[in-house]
């Protein structure tokens, strides 16, 4: 299995629901808690596995906002794993999820430097690295209804811009979406071969125009003079 996410940039409105759902679930998840710094003071921040970055493309009035949620892409060629000196950072054989063993991590930050996607965050309180687990503590939980065995970010997304599944299965929804909509690997040229894919915006919807002649008031009034509503 090769588990990962497909993120639809055609419908993502940048609402941050996935960001907070992730924070919420994982606070009591396998890598929790996720420390919040200066929770009620200056410079509030905290550990998060998923963040939405927003950009504008084009100049006014032809500009457009593009929202790009970013979490660990669970790369097939995961340099964050290669550089780890203790073996704490690893990619699971069973499903391809990249995880950090909290007991073996010494907080050296090498993996974060190796990750071009900014997907890893050191928790100052424990001095160890944390990252997206693909909600490994949800997706196999057989006490949950089958449809709920998905990452929290996917379940919550109000514009259904997030999909979870097995990229090794050519019939899975994620595989089909990537095929049908040209799913892309971000910064593929770097060669990390990310599992997660992004769906580019669909072509703009077009509409035809009614084809009738414009006529001025008096002409229209003459035409309409006898118009009535039948019983």
């Amino acid at each position, binding site marked *: 299995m090769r588990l990962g996410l497909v993120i639809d940039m055609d419908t993502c*409105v940048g609402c*941050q*629901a996935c960001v907070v759902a992730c924070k919420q679930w994982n606070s*009591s998840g396998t890598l929790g808690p996720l420390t919040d710094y200066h929770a009620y003071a200056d410079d509030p921040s905290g550990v998060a596995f998923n963040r939405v970055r927003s950009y504008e493309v084009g100049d006014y009035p032809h500009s457009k906002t593009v929202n790009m949620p970013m979490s660990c892409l669970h790369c097939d060629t995961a340099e964050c794993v290669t550089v780890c000196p203790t073996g704490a950072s*690893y990619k699971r054989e069973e499903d391809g999820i990249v995880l950090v*063993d909290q007991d*073996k991590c010494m907080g050296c930050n090498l993996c974060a430097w190796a990750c071009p996607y900014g997907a890893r965050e050191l928790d100052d309180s424990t001095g160890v690295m944390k990252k997206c687990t693909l909600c490994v503590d949800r997706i196999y939980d057989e006490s949950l209804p089958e449809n709920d065995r998905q990452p929290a970010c996917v379940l919550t997304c109000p514009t259904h811009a997030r999909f979870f599944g097995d990229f090794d299965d050519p019939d899975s929804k994620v595989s089909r979406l990537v095929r049908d909509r040209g799913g892309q690997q971000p910064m593929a040229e770097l060669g990390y071969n990310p599992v997660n894919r992004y769906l580019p915006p669909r072509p703009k919807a077009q509409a035809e125009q*009614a084809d009738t002649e414009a006529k*001025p008031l008096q002409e229209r009034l003459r035409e309409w003079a006898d118009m009535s509503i039948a019983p």
Partner: protein
Amino acid sequence: MAKNSALDDDCTGGSPGARTISAPEVAAALPKFENSSAQERKYTTCYMCACRCGIEVTMENGQPRFIRGNPRHPINQGVLCAKGNAGIMKQLSPGKLRNPLMRRPGSERGEGVFVEVSWEHALDVLTERLAEIRRTDPNRLAYFTGRDQMQALTGLWAQQFGTLNWAAHGGFCSVNMAAAGLYTTGQSFWEFADPDWEHTRYFLLWGVAEDHASNPLKIGIEKLKRRGAKFVAVNPVRTGYQAVADEWLPIRPGTDGMLALAFCHVLLSRNQIDWSFLGRYTNASFLVVQNPGHSDDGLIARNDDGEPLAWDPQAKAPVSGMSVDAERALFGEYTLPDGRSVKTVMSLVAERYLDEGYSPEAASKVCGIPAADIERIALEMAHVAFKESIEIPCEWTDWAGRKHDRFIGRPVSMHAMRGISAHSNGFQTCRALHLLQIFLGSVDVPGGHRAKPPYPRQTPPPIRPAKASAPSEPLASPPLGFPTGPEDLAIDEAGNPLRIDKAYSWDAPLANHGLMHMVITNAVNGDPYPIDTLLLFMANMAWNSSMNTGSVREMLVSKDEQGEYRLPFLVVVDAFHSETVNFADLVLPDTTYLERYDTISLLDRPISEPDAVCDAIRAPIMEPDRNVRPWQDVMVELGARLGLPAFIDDDNKPRYEGYTDFITRYEKAPGIGFLAGWRGEDGDTPMRGAPNPDQWDRYIENEGFFQYHLPEHMRFYRFANRDYLEWARDVGFNPTAEPIIMEIYSEPLQRFRLAGQGLYDGPCPTRADQKERLVHHFDPLPAYFPLVSKTDESAYPLHAVTQRPMHMYHSWDSQNAWLRQITAQNFLFMNRARAESMDLQDDDWVWVTSSNGRIRVQIRLMEGCQTDTVWTWNAIGKQGGNWGLSEDAPEVKRGFLLNHLIPELLGSAEEGRMQSNSDPVTGQAAWYDLRVRIEKADPEEPAESWPQFSATQRPPGLEAGPDRLRYHTHEPVRINRTLRDILTRK
């Protein structure tokens, strides 16, 4: 239970599809992460904004483990926004009030120095005060509620108390939308009706930033994108939902009415009109008296039975406009048998909007949208409406008994909100949007704008506002209603307002939601009269919910010549230590949404879907750990303490044990209560039936909500659908089953205009400014007006507006440890090229000046901003010490409120009477009329926002929040990598 989950749909986000990952060997190798036997899932309704999504809360060890959208809930279908996902941090807020508080004797109001008191003492003090008010002059109590969702109860309480001075926050939110809809089509946007997301092929989003309605709108927009429907966004700012729009029209703020009417011009000039829809379902064929200078000028000609007249071209005679036997002319000028000259509404409409004043070229100059784009979009809508019509085969019968075998749909839909409503021309702008919908025949039809029960209602509903109050007496009718002429106003014989907010006066005749934003100013100025007690529930009137915030804060502490506060007693009910709490004489602490019972009632602000009547409850997920009480319970108790008839029995004893008992047993009319589900003694009579003692339990069993699915033949054309109309009457939505005639031409507006002209056969104003406003703004046809505030555009060249970020919509109790990591400071955003032309760069500090004052703020440059517009996030700025925030928080030091720049009164005292900064029709607060200029701040000035307010003291019992938060409900269950794996695998 019905399956609502959008995740079930194969095309949408959730279902992972065929996969093999539940392979037992993978799961078996993992530890058990969650101790599900120690967890419990409970269901309630979110209260983080006004969407009222269903939530599932997993509790563990007495704490919330996980809050997620309920997949079966009709509103959110399993999804949940960022704010809803941050509910745990709301529950954890250090700003939660813990005990009733009274201003410490000897301390000054506004210092925020309190002593804790018992509930018994607090309620004794309040009861004594309110009893005296009720015994003498009930209007000396003003009771205004913020973003509550219990207006049916608070309104009942106020009516029972006998004060006219009650309203909720609609007057500063979206009354323009509600009023325009209910006086035009019988439905409006959001709670009233939704785009038909399943069928619509062309969608216009007007003036909606990132808010109302949050999750339903996002769910709907995704459906449009998936189907390839075109999405056009009309907004000066391209953020939020507009990010995924196919086309963005960067409109100049406050000019949307002109754009909508220019669309109407194009549709008329191209003869792209749904004539049959207009003729059958609107007053287009009705005859309007043409008798300038007389009391009947512009009124609808009527027969002796009061029925509107139309013209029968065959008989060449007037005929009842409701006749189903006669042909009715749509156009023409005729002479009635009594000699009066009349014209059809449609003739007036065509003459008005075919005028070149509404041409795309004329509109372009006003709106800043190229004329060719206006023309093109109008023609695209026409093509979709008339060449891509939908037909749903279904037998239905209209009000006149005519049988139909299909529903014809015009798949053009719209949604509109604050950008339309928060201008002083918003009522008429919203009417213009409805006119556009009517031209296209897209009201409550497949693919169009679908009503949500209890809507549609009569245009307007036959409820008149209360006008008289008397000591120790309930009001004869609800405080709020729908005037249809000057005789319905709440004014005295001299024409002075009877209400403290001047709603239903000549200043704001159709103020159907009141004018909450004027209450403090009016009360302190004694205009129209002073009051004794102001009771505020969940409203931050000393901060982001008032215009001219600094001045309002001074008013709250201002004293008369005798040294007494001009506003003698201020009671604040809130769950959190808001800025307004500091000014209270008495603070009554409320529970959080996870700690309370509530009803999301059809009598209030309904949550129905187009195909189903819906209501819902909140049920406590956890017990409060503080000495707080839900305000509903306290209101029921106060009602009994004060002897309000609805709350006591025949022995003057409390009639109800508390809020839940009240909800179970109270009937507004026989069989109609706050909750429509599981009525009848056995719970088998939905919608209307006897009280059911087990009703709450049945809701809780059904995960907190109730749905009544309408049969297919009652799902469209409900304004004229006989079976629907009869059913709606039977369940109490409408008093009659008469058809709802859409009012393109509004006779109520014309009555007020006649009053302004001094011609009305009834009350007329005497003041010149009031006459002028009525004549000018009460146009019986939808109209575009420049904004009321006549600001010098050369001195203040920029429009300034606000919006809420999606992760923080609404603003109420908005401090949240997780959400503030995303946004803790608001910037003033400007168009990049415009800013650069002013030599401004990202992060510059600037002074922003309006006619009302100035503020210092930090700017950010962006592309997606109309060039004459600046904007910011509302209510990010906070006062230090409130909400559990430290004094140096970014919200305090760098965040800001635009409110300081917005005057609540326009004109000057020297020139005569001042008018509120509101729509002259409805009294809707005109937040977005603001104009400003910008100058770079001196680099020597401090890099902080101005004005700054000194930090408030933490009330007794509240503690500072932790600097580091490490919330979790159980110790994490780790996964450890085996040594063998490390040694054998890279």
